[in-house]
């Protein structure tokens, strides 16, 4: 069947099999930040934005994404850069395997809740599993990032 969609701002058209998963489609287009983790819709490693909303690409048929807009971390580089660098500098994670999925969902969180509480962060990121950090590092990193952003805004406002 024929698929037409927008992937990271580029229109793509191709023939796909009806059971091709969105995860496999985006990886075939070089979006290797999207990883196959649990494949049971639990770990959040395969998070992509579908029409701006975070979804698990391991659980969406590519066919269903036809006619829609898909973004991966590769397409959100600018938006992700500041946060990703900050988290790395904070030493908030260990192996970094979960990082792309976590950043994608964090971007979705910041878009939906520009000033989230600790509880909102915990709840929003509950679908992103990390097997080494115990989440405390990431939570601390995020709270520090939000404080840094606020400070930056205040300084900007004062100028």
């Amino acid at each position, binding site marked *: 069947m024929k698929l037409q969609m927008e992937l990271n701002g580029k229109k793509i058209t191709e023939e796909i099999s009806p059971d091709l998963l969105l995860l496999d489609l985006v990886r075939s287009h070089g979006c290797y930040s999207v990883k196959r983790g649990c494949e049971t819709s*639990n770990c959040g490693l395969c998070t992509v934005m579908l029409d701006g909303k975070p979804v698990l690409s391991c659980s969406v048929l590519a066919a269903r994404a036809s006619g829609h807009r898909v973004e991966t971390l590769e397409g959100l580089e600018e938006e992700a850069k500041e946060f990703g660098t900050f988290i790395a500098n904070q030493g908030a994670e260990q192996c970094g395997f979960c990082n792309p999925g976590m950043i994608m969902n964090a971007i979705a969180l910041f878009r939906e809740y520009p000033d989230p509480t600790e509880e909102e962060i915990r709840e929003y990121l509950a679908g992103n599993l990390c097997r080494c950090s115990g989440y405390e590092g990431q939570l601390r990193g995020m709270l520090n990032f939000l404080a840094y952003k606020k400070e930056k805004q205040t300084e900007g406002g004062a100028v």
Partner: protein
Amino acid sequence: MLKIREYVKAESLEQAYALNQKNGCILGGMLWLKMGNRTVQTAIDLSGLGLDEITETEEEFSIGCMTTLRRLELHEGLNRFGGGAFRESVRTIVGVQFRNLATVGGSIFGRYGFSDVLTCFLAFDSYVELYKGGVMPLEEFAASKRDKDILVRLIVKKTPVRCVYLSHRNTKTDFPVLTCAVSAGPWGVRAVVGARPQRAVCVPVKGVDALGAAVCQNTDAAEVNAVNTVNTAQIEAAARETADKIPTSGNMRAGAAYRSHLAHVLIRRALTRIWEEEKGEKEEAEGRKGGWQA
């Protein structure tokens, strides 16, 4: 592994229904379907039919079958009406990315034992609209066998209700060990318990009917005041009696005895919260009245 031979984005419910009669399979969020080892001849996608909205009228909420759990969680009107029960019932289901895919129709049509969503909706005055079968009470639908009809939407009537939703999980985001929704309304008080691990059942709660009368804001002051006659001993006894009527069994998450114990605890907690909220609201109302008189 899920294999799909043909994928059809339905252009009408009639087309979807016709395809579904011949080896078709209606796709909801596809999250449970994907976990199985199955070959689907024709996957029928309803996502292009505009069935992903929640609409509110004076009398009811209409929830399209393709509405995501995330939309249910965030809908202000529905959650104001349900006292936050809908949000509470879905907020621990995996993560936001999952809930942006899972659909209300998929959860309800599947009549899954583990379904938080089915448990919650059963506590309200809820109905399903089937494409061929028409409108029927959700309780009747939940007890019926799966067939080849299409669940088009859910209807939640704005019947006065106070509902508390609780669940117990061994670990966050996992399937529930037990789900429990208790509601007070014109029907008196009822408890819905799911993940027993079988599908949710509705059981009337005896001995605390005054809570139902109070919720309905009956003009008969005696009935409204009846909320003050309820006490913790009555709640404890009612929760015990109700839990005893609910059959449970064991699986890898918990044994039958543990589930029965949990059922008692969760029903008691839910009843207590309903009672306290009703008392609080009544006291607040009386306070306001006193203030005006002064």
